[in-house]
């Protein structure tokens, strides 16, 4: 009888222990499904190769990791990624770096160098009804403080920061007239704050849209004129490198540069402006560019031409453009289809299926043709 009672007690203890174990297991935080993984390195014959990723609106971590793995596997050590101010400082002084950390940490683990592009004004820093590219002079301080916070947070992880995007277009300047003087002022604020946060960080200016806008156009200003305007306004002291946008449209990369032509080699003309202004010691990085193979877009080329031109562009920068540190082409993959000609700039489809251009560029990076 006594033995039976003891056995029953033992069974109860085992049941309790099992229940406690179960509760403990249920209560444990789940193991992360996606991990950073071991440190990787990019293998390539051309260290100037790069692609612009589009991970800002990519929510799922595995997609972020897969994208960056594929960039590494293609042989491109550089990426440009967009870090919208409004996403990371939704309220003045309140920062949330969670998503940005995820992108940057995965990129670094894949052996990639991240160039961060900053822009996109939060609602609290602009008048009601204005666009996300509108920044009033009175809010330059706010942007400067964001730059300080960003550079401080990513100190040692991000060494290149682009200030704004295509400020020579009215669209990208909040539908105000393009103003090299005003952009230079913004640059001055951003530069001072960035250097205070990390003296080693490289501030990239410009990222100007290649455009032949006539003088007085309400839509934008010729990029060569705008850059000279920046120098006239004293921009030389407020940037370390020039970000260049180099789209080829229908022309091959070796098509000669001309002031009245938009082509890949137009980058050389921007370089000449730098040299003319005694700024030849600084380097450039092409932070957007490339060719499109949409079957109907008037500025598109055939898919085979796109492959040839893309590889030649990487080659040209390596062999002929010592002043160009990297060539980052638009765009590796979109998080969802744009359903316009824009889809024909990508290297990889939304579902991660590599396009033939991906395989050919990868072969090139591995030293095969």
């Amino acid at each position, binding site marked *: 009888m006594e033995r039976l009672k003891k056995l029953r007690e033992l069974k109860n203890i085992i049941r309790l222990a099992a229940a406690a174990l179960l509760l403990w297991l249920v209560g444990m935080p789940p193991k992360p499904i996606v991990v950073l993984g071991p440190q990787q390195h990019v293998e390539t014959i051309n260290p100037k190769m790069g692609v612009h990723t589009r991970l800002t609106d990519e929510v799922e971590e595995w997609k972020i990791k897969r994208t960056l793995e594929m960039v590494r596997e293609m042989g491109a050590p550089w990426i440009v990624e967009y870090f919208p101010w409004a996403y990371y400082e939704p309220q003045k002084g309140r920062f949330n770096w969670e998503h940005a950390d995820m992108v940057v940490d995965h990129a670094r683990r894949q052996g990639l160098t991240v160039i961060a592009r900053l822009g996109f004004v939060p609602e609290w820093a602009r008048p009601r009804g204005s666009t996300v590219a509108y920044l009033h002079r009175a809010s330059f301080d706010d942007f400067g403080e964001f730059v300080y916070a960003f550079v401080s947070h990513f100190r040692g992880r991000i060494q290149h920061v682009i200030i704004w995007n295509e400020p020579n277009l009215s669209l990208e300047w909040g539908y105000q007239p393009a103003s090299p003087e005003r952009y230079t002022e913004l640059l001055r604020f951003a530069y001072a704050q960035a250097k205070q946060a990390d003296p080693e960080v490289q501030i990239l200016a410009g990222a100007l849209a290649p455009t032949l806008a006539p003088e007085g156009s309400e839509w934008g200003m010729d990029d060569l004129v705008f850059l000279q305007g920046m120098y006239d306004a004293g921009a030389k002291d407020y940037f370390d490198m020039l970000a260049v946008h180099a789209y080829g449209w229908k022309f091959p990369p070796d098509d000669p540069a001309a002031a009245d032509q938009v082509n890949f080699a137009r980058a050389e003309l921007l370089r000449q402006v730098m040299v003319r202004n005694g700024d030849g010691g600084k380097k450039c990085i092409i932070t957007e560019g490339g060719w499109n193979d949409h079957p*109907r*877009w*008037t500025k598109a080329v*055939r*898919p*085979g031409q796109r492959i040839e031109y893309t590889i030649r562009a990487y080659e040209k920068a390596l062999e002929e453009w010592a002043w160009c540190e990297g060539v980052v082409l638009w765009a590796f993959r979109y998080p969802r289809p744009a*359903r316009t*000609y824009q889809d024909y700039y990508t290297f990889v489809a939304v579902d991660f*299926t590599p396009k033939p*251009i991906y395989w050919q560029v990868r072969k090139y990076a591995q030293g095969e043709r």
Partner: protein
Amino acid sequence: MGGKVRARHILVFLVIGLGVVGLGVWYWLGRGEEKDHTWAVIQQTGVLRVGMDASYPPFEEIDEATGELRGYDVELAREIGRRLGLEVQFVNIGFDGLYDALIAKKVDAVISALPYDPLRTQDVFYTMSYFNAGLVLVVKEGETEDALSKVEGIESVDDLSGRTLGVEWGSDSDAQGRRLVKRLTGLTLHPYSTPLDTLWGLKNGEVEAVLVDAFSAHHFIKHEGAVKIVGEPVTDESYVIAVGPTSTELLSALNAVLLALRDDGTLIRLRDEWF
């Protein structure tokens, strides 16, 4: 006294409640019977406004000599107009603006070599397909009709093991070819710069089959000959007509005409005429 007031309150709440429910039911029932105002206006004016990006020959382009629109889609739209007793008014719009024009009611329909897009079906209605521009497999004529056809003939992509297939380098046909290489033993790809070069490669005997878009294939067959399409289309790129999200009657009318055009051979005649 208090009981009467309470009863009145209950009655008022009941009436309001019934009214709200009644309005909800009326709205819910009415939703499904939204009137097709577009069709009513078309009937009233006798004009069908067709949006098109006239930069994609031979489907649509501007004739340099006359300044007039011409092409497969132009003739298709005119034929639809004839059968519906409507005058067709063309509105030339850039390809990326076609959907916006439709949604903003600047046009009644888009006829512009427009591929069916499953992601747009909440915004617009699509008709049945009138042309499939997807990839097709093309071989030399006579290839499957000779004595060896049963052994060596190519009737579909599954027969490509051990063959050489021509593709346009970097294009969808290249991507499709690379997929086939993984699946079929001994298949070799031969890249060309354009679909036309690819088809010439076939005609000249450099490859045994090619993958090209249906339009290029039909065009080459008509103008150069000696090659033919075999099997079903390898991929689907269905060209459709798009109408607004409330244009149900217009959609029915267009589908009825397209069916008739298919059944009486008009679609094939248009294809032969323009490709």
